[in-house]
């Protein structure tokens, strides 16, 4: 991993003078307002947070080589564990004849569904950022991509495992008890020192896009096991299993209908196997009621089977929602949905809205509401963590 850093940095320094440079990025302020008192009195109330994410790009050798550097940093008022920095990307791309090689720290996303990202496994989730699982930590990698007429073939060597981040003692929303990341355990005798491997084939056939992926190494999603910290207080301890994951993603476009499917089969080395799937559709009514608006209706079914393990949060769940795009000059959008557990009746509501203000500012509103969560549900700890988030981002 150090070698990759070294090589990439050397390249960066050596070529900066001759390179084409461009930059973009954002500074974002965030306020979270909580509607209830926390379950644990140590957890914070209303919270202010600031983040920065510049993205620098150099290209040289007639754009056959390029380097992306994208650091991220956050300052958080209430949770010292959310005050954190990460190198999201530090990636050198070389374009060859019919191949692409990327070396350094990168980000890769696989997936098609809206309510859950099952197949996506290269990058670890930066969970302390947001519980929606869409923020990812930079992953050290060597990534070979072969675009062919028969599809795109991707191969990954992934040295350097990253632990999932979790909110600290004062953090919110979070599990009860909190997750103690410093006590994390591994199947792997060398702990996080392991080189993971992955491959993916993706192709489209007419209106259908398909992706089949395989991963072998330390699985990104930890099991949270009850334990105690050094003071004897209860905590959840992440355990990282070693195993493999076979994933498939499918998406079909038929007129205004989008059909989506993601499914994974995980083979754990030490415990029972795991299967999970998300399947659903999105139907878009364009020029809704004679207006300029587009209205999308979304529905997805979430299934997972842990074998002998205790149930996860999405064992038998239904997601329904709608997406409204005003198609105005400010790109105003609204996505609202609910994930309901068919068995225990618990519901999590999500609302995300955004619009641009002028040319450089973007206003976002996000709300998450946890409703009717029974004691047996893994989300029970977050039952008093309903919040409304307002963000204002400056983009350059």
């Amino acid at each position, binding site marked *: 991993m150090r070698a990759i850093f070294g090589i990439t940095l050397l390249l960066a320094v050596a070529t900066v003078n001759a390179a084409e440079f461009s930059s973009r990025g954002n500074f974002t302020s965030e306020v979270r307002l909580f509607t209830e008192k926390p379950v644990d009195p140590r957890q914070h109330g209303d919270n202010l947070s600031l983040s920065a994410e510049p993205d620098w790009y150099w290209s040289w050798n007639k754009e056959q080589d*390029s380097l992306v550097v994208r650091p991220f940093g956050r300052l958080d008022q209430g949770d010292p564990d959310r005050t954190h920095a990460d190198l999201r990307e530090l990636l050198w791309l070389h374009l060859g004849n019919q191949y692409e090689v990327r070396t350094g720290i990168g980000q890769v*996303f696989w997936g098609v569904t809206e309510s859950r990202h099952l197949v996506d496994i290269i990058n670890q989730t930066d969970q302390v950022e947001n519980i929606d699982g869409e923020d990812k930590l930079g992953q050290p990698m060597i990534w070979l991509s072969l675009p062919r007429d028969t599809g795109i073939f991707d191969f990954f060597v992934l040295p350097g495992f990253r632990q999932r981040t979790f909110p600290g003692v004062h953090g919110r929303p979070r599990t009860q008890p909190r997750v103690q990341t410093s006590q994390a355990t591994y199947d792997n005798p060398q702990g996080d020192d392991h080189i993971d491997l992955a491959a993916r084939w993706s192709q489209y056939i007419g209106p259908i896009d398909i992706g089949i992926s395989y991963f072998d190494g330390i699985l990104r999603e930890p099991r949270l096991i009850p334990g105690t910290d050094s003071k004897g207080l209860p905590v959840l301890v992440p355990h990282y299993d070693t195993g493999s994951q076979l994933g498939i993603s499918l998406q079909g476009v038929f007129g205004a209908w989008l059909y989506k499917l993601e499914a994974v089969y995980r083979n754990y080395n030490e415990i029972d196997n795991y299967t999970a799937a998300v399947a659903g559709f999105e139907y878009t009514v364009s020029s809704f009621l004679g207006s300029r608006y*587009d209205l999308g209706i979304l529905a997805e079914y979430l299934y997972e089977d842990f074998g002998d393990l205790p149930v996860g949060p999405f064992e038998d769940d239904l997601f329904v929602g709608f997406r409204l795009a005003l198609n105005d000059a400010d*790109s105003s959008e609204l996505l609202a949905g609910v994930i309901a557990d068919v068995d225990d009746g618990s519901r999590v509501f999500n609302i995300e809205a955004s619009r641009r203000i002028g*040319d450089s500012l973007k206003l976002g509103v996000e709300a998450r509401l946890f409703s009717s969560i029974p004691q047996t549900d893994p989300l029970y700890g977050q039952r008093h963590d309903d919040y409304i988030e307002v963000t204002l*981002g400056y983009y350059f």
Partner: protein
Amino acid sequence: MRSVFCLTTIILFWSTGILAETPQQQGHAVVSELHARDTGWHDQFAKMKMILTNRQGETSTREVRMYTLEVPGDGDKSLSIFDAPADVRGTAFLSHTHALQPDDQWLYLPALKRVKRISSANKSGPFMGSEFAYEDIASQEIDKFTYKLVAEETIDGNDAFVVEQYPQYEKSGYTREVVWIDKARYIPLKLDYYDRKDALLKTLTFSDYQQYLDKYWRAGEMYMENHQTGKRSTLTWTDYSFRQDLDDHDFDRSVLKRLR
């Protein structure tokens, strides 16, 4: 003498040709000639700046780099990369258009590193919040419309054919479009769009035409006015270049992840 004779013959042949046909055949012939004169450029690049103006005069700007590949016998392929506004910088739109089948379209969202297949069913929806609909900016394959020559007029000092075209694809927002085509250069000068109630909805005016490679005319400005809302959108095209040796690989899904 010989050349004068030739010219006379051509004019005679041309006029009788037009007269012998129905208005539908004449309209089709004019548009066919427009298409025929605009083939063979192979690939094209241009920068587009779009200024949206609302009824109150407030403006909003978008900037896009657009690559296009000519595909003989099918619709063109295009790749658009957004440079402004800043919050969508790096977003890319890839389109493989087809004459009869639905177009294949992908959107790349840089914040999530996500390549998203999107539906091309929404023909009449606004493009980037502008007064241009997706169907206005899509590759105009000849089979997408039927035609009728309705008049010959002089517009801004240019002799023009006036052709009505009727969308044959599903979900169009228009009953008909009326296009003024310059007789000398076979290029569109003006387009009126009629909504589903056959009321005049929008007018598109082309200006600042320049010729490239001694053959292909490209407008420097396209001005769209919505008569029903008072909103306007102005497209300004600059930095045109042609025949840069682009091929199918430059319009493959795999390029989306490495664009800048």
